[in-house]
């Protein structure tokens, strides 16, 4: 265990190794490590940002969904209202139409009745003449008794 020239040579070698390490080994690999660290950090940040944007988007979607729901219920309510209104309108129209038809029928019936009465009146006059002819056993001149017949017709 004598100190000798080996010490000097080992020291020189040691410095040479340090130089080699500091020049060729340490910087490139450290750079690679740091670059990767940066990439990973960026990736994580991007993931975080993505998460955040996803959350805002989900919130917006929820808002839009509720809005759409309220709009649709509004539309449904409007539709319901419109339906009832239409039905009511149709009902009242139908009622009016029915009343009109009934009124027209009544008028026609009255007309018919009046016409029947008229014809009955004429026939009563004829019948009266025929009856009188039977009673008198002879021809009765309706012209001669026109005044009388008219009076009967009027009475009828």
């Amino acid at each position, binding site marked *: 265990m004598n100190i*000798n*020239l*080996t*010490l000097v040579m080992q020291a020189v*070698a040691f410095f040479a*190794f340090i130089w080699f390490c500091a020049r060729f080994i340490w910087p490139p*690999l450290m750079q*690679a490590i740091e670059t*990767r660290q940066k990439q990973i950090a960026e990736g994580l940040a991007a993931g975080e940002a993505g998460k955040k944007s996803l959350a805002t988007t989900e919130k917006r979607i929820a808002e839009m969904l509720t809005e759409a729901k309220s709009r649709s219920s509004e539309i449904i309510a409007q539709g319901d209202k419109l339906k009832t209104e239409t039905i009511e309108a149709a009902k009242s129209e139908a009622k009016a139409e029915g009343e009109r038809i009934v009124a027209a029928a009544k008028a026609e019936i009255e007309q018919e009745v009046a016409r029947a009465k008229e014809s009955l009146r004429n026939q009563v006059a004829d019948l009266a003449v025929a009856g009188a002819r039977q009673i008198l056993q002879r021809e009765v001149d309706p012209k001669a008794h026109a005044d009388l017949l008219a009076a009967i017709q009027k009475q009828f």
Partner: protein
Amino acid sequence: MVAEETELTPTSYIQHHLTFFTRTVNDGAGFWTINVDTLVTTMVIAVLAFGFLWLITRKSTAGVPSRVQAFVELTFDFVNEQVKGIYHGESRIVAPIALTTFVLTLFLNAMDFLPVDIMSHGFEALGFHNWRPVPTADVNTTFALALSVFAMMIYYSIKVKGLGGWIHELFCAPFGAHPLLWPANLLFNAVEYLSKPLSHSLRLFGNMYAGEIIFMLLGLWAATGVVGAVLGGVLHLGWSIFHILIVGLQAYIFMMLTIVYISMAHEGH
């Protein structure tokens, strides 16, 4: 395992394993020797380890990483977190220093897992007697690392505080700026500066050296016969498993102390 002419005794066995494969420079002795085993093992391990890291780095991508890249990144991130937790200065080179220190000490320590005798026989077959495979069990390696860190410490101290500021701090901290306190401050700082590289290097060296010796002592069981060899093997396994902790822990401590020392150099008292 020992040269044929010497008798195989426990002492010679251990001494054999603790002898470096050396070459001298300029026919000098003492300091002018090179522990070839330490140096070559360090180079091979470092080239393999840093070559592997470089290969992964070259193919690295900021996209989905491959499994190997993910594993390497885990190591980088671990070192980077430690540096970030301790060091708050400007220099961008502290983290690579920490990584280099950690990887280097970890793999050099890990050479301790290789079984001493099999390695020894293998190197002997290649013609190398006395090849010690664990560079961090060589005090030269740990001192080289610790003194390099020490040099960086001084460098950053002067760089951050200026030469004047650093010298001022040597005399005026931590007790006060009164001239009478200058010797005490200087002594305190001297002890601090001396103890840092010493404890830094000797902690690693001591752990790895002791670990190696324990492996050898357990290997001695084989000399007592078959039962002893089996028992030695079992103990060897246990110590190896425990050693995984030591290897990792010492590499971690060495790295942490490197960061701490360098960051302390940045902070004024």
